[in-house]
């Protein structure tokens, strides 16, 4: 069971990352590439959260119901980190989309193969 969970959850995260990377590397459309980036980020975030999980743990909040009792809590650090990661991912995505808009305005295409005025 443990093994299955390990493989399935990590596997899911990695599948997402793989999917995202594939889109980034193979898709020609700029928007799809950006989508690939976000999917990649999602997979990574999922991985973060998954890593922080501890079997049987609750959310690391000392709500009145938990205070004073001995409960297992999941690792709060990856959760804090993933928050940061998400925000950064958001920022990058926003900038990426803005750049796509600019590129589309200039080149009138979203095919990345056609956008190589700068080379060598």
């Amino acid at each position, binding site marked *: 069971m443990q093994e299955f969970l390990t493989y399935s959850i990590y596997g899911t995260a990695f599948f997402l990352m793989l999917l995202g990377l594939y889109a*980034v*590397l193979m898709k020609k459309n700029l928007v799809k590439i950006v989508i690939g980036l976000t999917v990649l980020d999602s997979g990574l975030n999922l991985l973060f959260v998954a890593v922080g999980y501890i079997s049987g743990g609750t959310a690391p909040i000392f709500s009145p119901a938990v205070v004073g009792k001995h409960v297992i809590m999941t690792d709060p650090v990856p959760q804090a980190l993933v928050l940061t990661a998400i925000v950064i991912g958001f920022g990058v995505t926003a900038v990426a989309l803005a750049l796509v808009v600019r590129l589309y305005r200039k080149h009138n295409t979203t095919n*990345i193969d056609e*956008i*190589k*005025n700068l080379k*060598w």
Partner: protein
Amino acid sequence: MNSLVLLILIIAGGALLSYFGHKINKILGNITVFAVALIIPIYWFTQVDFTETVSFTVSGFHMELGYNMYGKLFSMIVMILSPLALIYAIGYMKDQKKLATFYFSFLFSILGMTGILMSRDFVSLFIFWEIMTWSSYLLVIFLGKDVQKTGIKYMVFSAIGAYAMLMAIVIIYKNTGSMMLSDYFGSFAGFTLQTKLLTGILLLLGFAVKSAVMPLHVWAPGAYSNTPMAYTSVFSGALSKMGIYGLGFVVVNLFAQANLEIVGYVLAWMGAITAVLATFSAVFQHDAKKLLAYSSIAQLGYIVTGIGIGTELSIMAGLYLAVLHAAFKGVLFMVVGAVERQAGTTDMNVVSGLARKMPFTFFTALIAIIALAGIPPLGGFVGKWMLYESLINNSNFLMVIMIFLSSTAAFLYCFKFLFGLFLGQQEPEFDHVKEASPVMIIPMLLLSVFLLVTGAYPGIVFKYVAEGMTNLGFHDVNWQMSVLTNAWGDSVNVQHVYLSVVVVFVAFLIFITWRGYKHSTKISTKDISSSGEMIKPEDNMTYAMDFYKPFQRVLQPILKWKINKYYEDFGKGLEALFDFMRRIYTGNGQTYAVYVIIFLAILLIFSKSIFGY
């Protein structure tokens, strides 16, 4: 204050003053340059204390400046030739622009040379070497001709040389833990053969580039001929001697003493081959500048041969020739400069018959050419003689033949130079030409006088050469004021030669001039015996084009073989390679991302072998 430091500061200050002087006003600038040109040699000859040293530690490297007699010998070349060239430049560069840059670079290259000759450690040697290189580069491209080709070629070869030297320096530092030249010489014997050869040959390579030894000479013709002639006289006369300076101490102090004379021998051979090939090239040039440039290479070849052989007489010959070459090449480049300035071109197919217009220039050129060709009774002969004798004494018979071939062929270009520019028919298009200004003539005359004097009294040069050779391990060098002696005891008394020549010449001069000269009329060069044909003034009958056609036919198989072309092909190949390599930057962002992924995958696959867990 230490006189050596002060000397450096004076030159650097002179450079800055000339720069700003010329920025403000041409006349002020010229006055500054003139003053600097006087002050530097005067200071050097009167105030500099040659026993003084100054040392300091910079960035953890111990550095020391101080003259030795060997450096002093070369310094004399620099200190005599450069100021004269500077003064000459005042006249020569009168109509040029960007004079501030010119004099700045000029003086900085003097600074570099001065520094090289007083460096006792590799770091300062290299620093000054590079200062010399870049300042001379600025002058090579100063006129803006062939900037990309010549300038880059010069810089590339200089850089290769300098970096070879740098590599040697760091390896030496690694092995001795010191940057001092003396420590290197001292511990050389203890190195492994591999280190000996590696450091020594890299150093040799560095110096050989500057002295334009054969496969590394291709920068020289273009660089010498493209530079303003006022500087070329220093370039060829003094700057190239820095290479000789280095070759001297490397070959003699290191290889000869470590029983690796074979290196010196190879070097001597390269010098001989250089001499021959460069002479052949010089013969067929039609631009006087190029001719002199190739001639310089050939002459440097003799010097390198002399140094490479490494016997007392041969080194003496090499060093003596180095001094003399500075003088006569200095004059010749100044002459070409004067012609260029007055007549507008130095193409020997175009210019002719300037001797009547520029008598002083012609006279100095004649003296310098006689010295260059090594014809007695002028000083050039002395050097040639010593070189031959040393080679013969060593039984290097093939090398003698090479050198002799080269110097015999040298007569061809010597004559062509004089004939092409000064003799032949006087063309109407050069009627306007006037003698160069005294500022230009006087330096040339001074150097010519030096050449005349050394013909009878080469001892005045031998004195310093012999002093300098003490630092190369030759104490008690045998020399006399005007008698040359070889290792077998055979000798030539140049004073007698001089005497004989002068007496006969004067006697017959009287004979032939008496009752003849006055009564004859001077006629134009168009008035020649021409089988009854009348030559009009505008007909150019001068035989200049393809002057040595028959010789060219003889040398056909050799001349086909052009080193320059190989280098250029190599360069082109490299460029193509670079172009190919930069194709990896395809311009497609996605491809770059793929590179990253592939790189990561490769690292992961080989992680075991990389990280060895």
